[in-house]
């Protein structure tokens, strides 16, 4: 990625919430070291920034590196990895616990696997608030109910007492969003938040995220494999391939990407508006693995 800021990067340059420079993540394997992220640099402002790529491109690993949630076998290095003026690499475990949830939150793909199956969803949302705020359980409950309403759950009182297995996928994702936003974070990392959802439910969830980002002035990293979605939902798009950023574009310019991989990815997508006999298949080039 070029380091010279362009017009589309202006928002990010003004007040970077997250800044990553030459971020590298490697995993210690039985046979040597595997480089998952190989020198990624970007900055996040109060915007919706998409990271797209295929499985194995490292997009989720980047999200986890910011939260410092990689497993112990991961070796994370960077010239710079900061949240505002906090150095995320040298932060103590205690400091990281204070940041996670309070200042930086993460929404995962499938609420089924990220909610605690043996606690009611309301308790979990209230717990997320009480972890960071010294309040009575009564007040935490009130907050949680307000938050459930904010994510457009029609009967918050009833839903508060439900267990995760009793709610639908769409409702589960609303609950996750409520839990992640209750302590008013400044950065939200959403890792494929709508991939497990139907299109109509997806649209509703995105609208909620969209409103929250606008109202609260959040910076959001939206990790996705869905190019059509990020085109209309996000402000900027980072395209990753094999642990590197191959291209960063304004979402509106997604059709004018230059890198052969980005072009290949877009071309291989079936289009709603035009019929083709065959879908072009990406002809991968080893040079893409090298520095861009």
């Amino acid at each position, binding site marked *: 990625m070029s380091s010279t800021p362009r017009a589309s990067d202006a928002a990010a340059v003004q007040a970077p919430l997250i800044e990553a420079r030459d971020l590298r993540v490697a995993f210690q394997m039985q046979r040597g070291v595997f480089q998952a992220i190989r020198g990624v640099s970007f900055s996040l402002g109060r915007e919706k920034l998409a990271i797209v790529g*295929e*499985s194995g491109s490292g997009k989720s690993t980047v999200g986890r590196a910011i939260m410092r949630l990689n497993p112990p076998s991961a070796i994370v290095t960077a010239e710079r990895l900061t949240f505002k003026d906090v150095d995320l690499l040298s932060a103590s475990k205690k400091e990281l616990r204070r940041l996670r949830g309070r200042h930086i939150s993460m929404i995962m793909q499938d609420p089924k696997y990220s909610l605690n199956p043996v606690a009611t969803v309301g308790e979990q949302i209230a717990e997320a608030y009480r972890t960071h705020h010294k309040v009575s359980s009564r007040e935490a409950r009130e907050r949680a109910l307000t938050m459930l309403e904010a994510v*457009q759950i*029609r009967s918050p009182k009833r839903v508060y007492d439900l267990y995760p297995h009793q709610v639908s*996928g769409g409702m589960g994702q609303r609950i996750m969003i409520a839990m992640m936003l209750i302590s008013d974070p400044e950065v939200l990392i959403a890792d494929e938040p709508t991939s497990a959802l*139907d*299109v*109509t*439910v*997806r*649209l*509703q969830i*995105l*609208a909620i995220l*969209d409103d929250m980002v606008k109202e609260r002035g959040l910076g959001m990293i939206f990790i996705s*494999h869905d*190019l*059509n*979605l990020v*085109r*209309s*939902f996000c402000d900027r798009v980072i395209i990753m391939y094999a642990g590197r950023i191959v291209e960063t574009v304004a979402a509106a310019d997604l059709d004018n990407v230059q890198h052969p991989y980005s072009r*290949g*990815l877009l071309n*291989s*997508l*079936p*289009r*709603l*508006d035009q*019929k*083709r*006999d*065959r*879908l*072009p*298949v*990406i002809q991968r080039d080893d040079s893409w693995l090298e520095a861009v």
Partner: protein
Amino acid sequence: MTAISVKNLSIVFGEEDNETKVLDAVSFDVEKGEVFGLVGESGSGKSTVLRCIAGLYTHWTGEIRIDGQPVGAQLTKERCRKIQMVFQDPYGSLHPKHTVQTTLAAPLRIHGIGDIDRRITEVLRDVGLAPHLRFRYPHQLSGGQRQRVAIARALILRPSILLLDEPTSALDVSVQAEVLNVLSDIRDREGLTYLLVSHDLAVIGHMCRRLAVMQQGLIEEVVDYADLSGGRAQQAYSRMLFDASHHYDRSMANDITAARQAGGGTIHGA
């Protein structure tokens, strides 16, 4: 000629007091050599239609005709040779402890068909897999290769109808393109009939000329894809489904929320 004819297909699950009608008088026809799409959201019953035709469910009511012949609820060997199914997740549909060779040989053995080696070589070539991959286990293959094996397994009995249940939903877009191309090539060459279930309207649009839009066990309408993409679908739900697949739009999200609240879950109206 009509390859698949479904009339008033209904199926109910659950005990007497707690019955759920999953399919409610579903009817449609698929021409020989056609790729017919079934779209709808989760729970609309699209996969259930495939499972009834495949014989995986046996307590349905109504009528299913294949090449003009009515089929009963019970599965026969003849029906298996004619109709095969490809599932969404090849990890779940391939035996983890069987090699590709064993998986592909099983249907041939069951049906008493000889010449196993030559047939496996042929079918692997048809789906674009190298011959040496036959000695691999599913976990030693990539996602795209696994789905090709699943397609090869369905093809090895030389069926005339393939039921495809979200065949590319678990795959990356570049791999999806490869698998869709393989499916198109095979159909062009062998003149197969496909019934394709997908939640991805772009995939349906790429493969199908006609499709049925389903919602809560009912067919909303059978529509030409050209009409659907041109905004000429009869039902509001079909148009909404198409628009929602297209892009994110704040006002559309409001409309959906309003329609859901008014219609108690289903979306109707102009």
